[in-house]
């Protein structure tokens, strides 16, 4: 869609993928842009593959169909690469942000991506384990997506994570999530 950045998130139930799309939406709105965030609802179970979407635009949006040609694909769980076609419908110059310790060049070959399509890798599992204390890849993935797409400033994202998590969690947990997002922002590789 002209003028609209479309993002597709691939994750598994319980990894915070839907929350990631929501937090990104709120952060984008905080920068005065127009936004949509919507998950694809099916059998919502722990571990079941799921998708969530964002649309981001400078101008108001009336479109309400599904995202079929994303320019950004965020893969929150790399095991999905073997079971789900994450490249389906992606634009010819789409950006893929993948939670993996692997190498972007190798993955690009393995996924048979087009020449202008680009892969960013971030080990969100390791980062979350070291910062948050358990595998919770959604906040580091947000940091990586923000770096790869430049859709908003890192500070805006951090402020929104604080605002979203501040209602529910203790300061220690908020701080560890902020660290996770910042580290991923710095460590994402292409």
């Amino acid at each position, binding site marked *: *869609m002209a003028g609209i950045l479309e993002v597709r998130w691939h994750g598994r139930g319980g990894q915070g993928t839907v929350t990631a*799309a*929501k937090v990104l*939406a*709120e952060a*984008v*709105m905080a920068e005065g842009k*127009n*936004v*949509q*965030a*919507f*998950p694809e*609802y099916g059998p919502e179970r722990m571990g079941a593959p799921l998708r969530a979407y964002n649309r981001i635009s400078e101008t*108001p*949006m*009336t*479109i*309400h*169909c*599904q995202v*079929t040609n994303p320019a950004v694909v965020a893969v929150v769980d790399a095991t999905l690469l073997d079971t789900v076609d994450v490249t389906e419908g992606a634009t010819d110059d789409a950006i893929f942000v993948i939670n993996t310790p692997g190498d972007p060049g190798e993955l690009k070959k393995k996924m048979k991506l087009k020449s202008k399509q680009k892969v960013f890798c971030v080990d969100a599992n390791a980062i979350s384990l070291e910062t948050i204390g358990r595998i919770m890849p959604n906040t580091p993935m947000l940091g990586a997506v923000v770096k790869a797409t430049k859709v908003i400033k890192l500070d805006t994202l951090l402020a929104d994570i604080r605002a979203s998590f501040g209602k529910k969690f203790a300061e220690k947990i908020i701080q560890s999530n902020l660290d996770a997002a910042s580290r991923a922002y710095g460590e994402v590789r292409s």
Partner: protein
Amino acid sequence: MKKVAMTGNVAVANAMRQINPDVCAAYPITPSTEIMQQFSTFVANGQVDTELVTVESEHSAMSACIGAAAAGGRVMNATSANGLALMWEMLYIAAGNRLPIVLSCVNRALSAPINIHCDHSDSMGARDSGWIQLYAENAQEAYDNTIQAVRIGEHPDLHLPVMSCMDGFIISHSIENLELLDDRQVGDFVGPYKGTAYPLLDLANPVTYGALHLQDYYIESRKQLHEAHKRAKNIVIEVGREYGKLSGRSYGLFETYKMDDAEIGIVALNSAAGTAKVVVDEFRAKGVKAGLLKPRLFRPFPYLEIADALKGLKALCVLDRADSFGAAGGPLFIEVRSALYDLPKRPVAINKIFGLGGRDLGLDDLRKVFEELVTLLDKGQAKSLYEYITVRE
């Protein structure tokens, strides 16, 4: 005024918080559950004075609403699909007793097969119950309609229940930008409750609700309801205009998009109309005079105004997200085509049933519809009057 990003459900729950109704009776059903779930936290936090009655079914929920409204309270509720179907009997009673209950209907397909996603079979089935029906394209309109529904239903010339509809999941569960009014602005706009002149709790002036009317009086009572619906149109316009002054967003009976010189057009309710606007723009860019009409008020159906707005078209397609099995078309088509009958020169009108059970209506689906309308400009006769799209053969 506050800019926020929230789901349609949370937006409606916030409208309810600002309206601060006396009573809500609720029974959860996807996708409307989140409205009452969110609202119940407002109740628990003491942000509203509402008596939230948890009941054992939607039939009971609407029954409790009827009792509370007759008692003299401002009453709201939310439901979807099979929940609305279970309320059926009570919907007619709420309208017949002229109780201005506001119900958020988050549109979802009726079983069977069981499905939780969007279509309009629920509210369309209730279209003859005597309720006013408003439809919303997005979360902003759902929020705005909820607030206006209170004023429309409680208007002293109406006293009618109002169903405020939005698309399940597509709007109810999608986060979008919208503007919320200040709490005080909403409070002042809806004002104190005056929905019934004869509350049951006025013990000094006891009255009887729901008395038996046989061959002697029933038809007079229904004629009153019929006449009230005739008056509703102007009140919807009046409230929409006043809301516009307050919010900067004026509302009428329907929205037209690029219709002034249009030759072909689509008529569609709710979120599908938003997606169709994108395709109207595409066809306009190619030099095709395409337009769109999105009804907001479906009951009463403003047939004279809609016929007038469509009279310049040569061909149009009505998109229905519900079937009326065995009829001459979907519910919206039947209304629109009937409205066109008295025009001296009628456009060719076709009907597509789409998106049942949440099947996506994509840009390509809409492009095909407009392309067909373009061919009708030359041929003048459709190959099929009434057919399904977005369906596998």
